[in-house]
């Protein structure tokens, strides 16, 4: 026969005892499960391109839940069970109450064996002890004295004992406890003028979400155009799923003021640890080994952090028939998944973002040369695919950041050529996809001593520079070799120290982003050599006449 607090409270009233001080005056009500859900997923704020990492989702989401509540008149405590475990409680907004919200609470303590022990501390508890041989269980009423340091000490009429130190099967049977819920719970204290049923909306930001755009570029056989397809890949690493939700993703970088350190703690609880006194026996070898064993035991018993328990995401769902719809949201881009969709717990989902074809593209090979470097080592050039995000190019729509996989075709066989990252690209911006190094186009830079005046083959570039005033003993020479069967466009960019400039060159010099650049055409199976001379500021201060 166990006495429950409710029975005790009734008995207490019957015998005229004072009500328990500090008790909750407000009636406790549970809100119904969400009837409507909106989930808006935002990218990891600091990731500028690339795919999401399913094991560590750094983005977040705005979750709006519509729930029905049955409010009694007066003050009540309303519990919203089953909110996302990554909830940022400070961001919660609840609308729809007639009498206003008195306060909002998020309780981080979840129902767990360790939390049961902690909340029963100093209170009566029933000890169950079973004799293995007979199967007979002995029940003893006692009081929990301590759960400090991972050991449990309790008191019965026989004296003080420690749990599970005797080698007998022992456990507790607890009185019902309040204030511990199975799932993350948000509660609000509200006051209602009358009893009524209301529809309220709870919105909050939650961690453990992310999304990215994943583009596939399929180059045509001649390499002059490509097809662009893209998926929106979104994922939820929360333990809570969002069935039949309106789902959106938002592109663009939003400011987050919260640092990593400000995540509110959540006590997910742990097992009952019943650590005992030293249990070394006469057959034990050394104390060091004992320590190690104890340490390992500690590690094995320690509650794992949440992230480790989550593990990898389980499921990948692809829906491709309908594309997302884009709309402007302030300075951000919002993409709406056309139909309601279920974003289940620990799931990643893909929705079609776009499909475009016949986008003209041109290929450029490029290399950067640091003029200070002397070594004559050949380095491969980078192959760059360039186009412009305009309607004329069959694009002209915002391209959210993500990863790009480029496919080419060889004898009808589709091959992956390269994977790279893409930043956010607005309409009318240039799109450049770096295809990585191309060993067929090599760049060799070195310096040569100038013994004769090279004025004849290298005309001055900068007007007003007197040839006689420039005394430069060396010229830089860059050789670009092309082993491909076709001519290539080549861009050679120079890295100069501040104030230095190119004074002579045997090819036309341009600038890009404030730096000198040679735009060349390298014929098939040929080598083009560029020679130029640099003047540094410390060579001589020049005044143009």
């Amino acid at each position, binding site marked *: 026969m166990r006495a429950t607090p409710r029975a005790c409270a009734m008995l207490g009233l019957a015998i005229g005892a004072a009500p328990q001080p500090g008790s909750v005056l407000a009636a406790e009500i549970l809100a119904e499960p969400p009837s409507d859900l909106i989930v808006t997923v935002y990218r990891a704020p600091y990731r500028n391109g690339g795919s999401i990492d399913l094991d560590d989702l750094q983005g977040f989401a705005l979750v709006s839940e519509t729930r029905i509540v049955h409010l009694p008149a007066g003050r009540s405590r309303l519990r919203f069970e089953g909110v996302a475990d990554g909830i940022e409680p400070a961001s919660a907004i609840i609308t729809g109450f007639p009498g206003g919200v008195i306060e909002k609470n998020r309780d981080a303590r979840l129902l767990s064996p360790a939390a049961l022990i902690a909340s029963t501390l100093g209170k009566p508890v029933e000890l169950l002890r079973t004799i293995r041989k007979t199967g007979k269980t002995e029940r003893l009423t006692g009081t929990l004295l301590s759960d400090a340091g991972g050991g449990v000490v309790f008191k019965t009429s026989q004296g003080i*004992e420690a749990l599970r130190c*005797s080698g007998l099967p022992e456990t507790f049977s607890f009185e019902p406890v309040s204030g511990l819920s199975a799932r993350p719970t948000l509660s609000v204290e509200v006051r209602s003028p009358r009893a009524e049923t209301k529809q309220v909306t709870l919105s909050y930001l939650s961690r453990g979400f992310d999304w990215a755009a994943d583009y596939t570029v399929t180059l045509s056989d001649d390499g002059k155009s490509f097809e662009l397809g893209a998926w929106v890949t979104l994922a939820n690493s929360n333990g809570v799923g969002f069935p039949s939700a309106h789902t959106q993703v938002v592109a663009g970088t939003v400011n*987050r003021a919260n640092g990593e350190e400000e995540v509110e703690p959540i006590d997910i609880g742990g097992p009952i640890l019943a650590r005992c006194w030293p249990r070394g026996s006469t057959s034990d070898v050394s104390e060091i080994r004992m320590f190690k064993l104890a340490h390992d035991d500690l590690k094995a018993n320690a509650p794992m952090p949440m992230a480790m328990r989550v593990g990898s995401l389980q499921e990948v769902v692809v829906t491709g028939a309908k594309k997302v719809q884009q709309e402007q*949201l302030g300075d951000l881009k919002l993409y709406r998944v056309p139909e309601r969709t279920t974003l289940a717990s620990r799931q990643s989902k893909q929705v079609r973002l776009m499909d475009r074809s016949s986008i003209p593209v041109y290929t450029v090979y490029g290399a950067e040369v640091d003029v200070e470097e002397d070594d004559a080592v050949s380095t491969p050039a980078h192959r760059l695919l360039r186009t412009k995000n305009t309607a004329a190019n069959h694009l002209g729509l915002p391209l959210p950041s993500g990863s790009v996989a480029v496919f080419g075709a060889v004898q009808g066989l589709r091959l992956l050529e390269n994977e790279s990252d893409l*930043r956010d690209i607005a309409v009318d911006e240039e799109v450049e996809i770096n295809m990585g190094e191309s060993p067929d186009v090599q760049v060799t830079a070195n310096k040569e001593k100038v013994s004769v005046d090279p004025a004849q083959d290298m005309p001055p570039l900068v007007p007003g520079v007197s040839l006689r005033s420039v005394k430069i003993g060396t010229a830089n020479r860059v050789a670009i070799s092309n082993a491909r069967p076709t001519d290539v466009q080549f861009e050679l960019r120079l890295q100069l120290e501040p104030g230095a400039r190119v004074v002579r060159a045997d090819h036309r010099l341009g600038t890009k*982003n404030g730096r000198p650049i040679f735009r060349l055409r390298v014929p098939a199976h040929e080598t083009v050599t560029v020679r130029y001379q640099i003047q540094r500021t410390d060579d001589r201060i020049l005044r143009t006449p």
Partner: protein
Amino acid sequence: MRLPLIFMACSAWFLAASAWPADRTLSVTIYADDLALVQDRRDIDVKEGRQRIEFQEVSGQIRPETVSLAAADISIIEQNFDFDLLTPAKLMEKAVGQEITIVRVNPATGAETREQAQVLATNGGVVLKIGQRIEVLRDDGLPVRVIFSKVPDNLRARPTLSVSIIGAHAGTRRATLSYLTPGLGWKADYVALYNESDAKIDVQGWVTLTNSSGTTYDNAQTLLVAGSPSQVDGAANNYRPSPRRSTLQVPGTESGNRERLGDYYLYPLAERTTIANLQTKQVSFLDVHGVPAEHGYEFRNRWLGTAETPVSAKSIYSFSTSAHAGLGDQLPAGILRFYMRDKRGDPQFIGESRIDHTPMGSTLSLTTGDAFDVKVHAVVEKRTRIATFDWQTDMRYELTNALPRSVVVKLRQEGLWGDSSIKAESQKSTRSSAEVAEWAVTVPANGKATLTASFETRY
């Protein structure tokens, strides 16, 4: 037979519950920087003469050096804060030299044999003296229960504060225990809904309390203090983060009707509240509708900042906290989250920004994030040495706007050090400080604008 059993169990339950004195009043004053002053008034029973009084249910992170106890007709001898915790190992350790009861359980029959034993040592294993023999506890692995007769005096389940006092006379009296504790803190959280059509915001302010002190404060009268008192041992306070973009454009000069304590503003909670351990609690303190707000763009370029690809401008919202065209309140430090309605009318999050303690009448300018469609490409075009210590730097800023309306970008070139002068510029700049030159560049809808400037710097 049944009723007395219930009654016995219940009386134990009532005893445990009455660990809370019915006449206890708690008041908690929480400062913004993880610090709280707890004042705990309760009736204590005092005997005449010397005695020890224990205070349970104090903060688990209490700073014992700040404890003070005040009650009539007592004199305090000493205060102790016991943090020796009651664990099975400690219990055995303290029993060294003392008698314990061991109960051997026969695994075959379940029969119990009771014996008295003296604990000799607990180094690595428990060594017992039973009669004239020495034995190692449970060396054979067979079940043995150990029963202790009492818990040593200073072993506790939780750290406990005890005070030794001399009572002048016996009787119950009112005592006030006050102490400082970390683990309790608060900050403000604001929700701002921006209405794009009429450029107005609705702002709600919430006080967010967090309690990680290890204790629940029941029915506490709660007062929040905006402002950070200097703490001597607060190591976290010595660290000042590097200066960030100032959100406060114009500091205000207005006073509200909020209660003050010295230079701090006080935010009392209207009703008593229970601050549970590991709980986040929010209470509303501000609700204003239809405050005019301005939306703009800002781009800050560091000195000699040059980019390979265009960089997004920051999206900025600014508004006033003044009593007439603003929020009409001082704002405690916290985070302001901006929302905006999408085409379907659902509010969507568009970014957040931290604000400092802000006086009333101030102008705030807050960043919500990067603008997808408004970008600036800043390039150092040329750097020339014009004299031994004089350099000329030609900058070009290309601004693009993919929005269907024209925008104004506040372009700031920083790092001018006061000795830089602008020799030529395509548009007139303002010099808000010696450090910064600022241009308001209008970028047409779906268009471009170019700004060039030539700086002369001494080096």
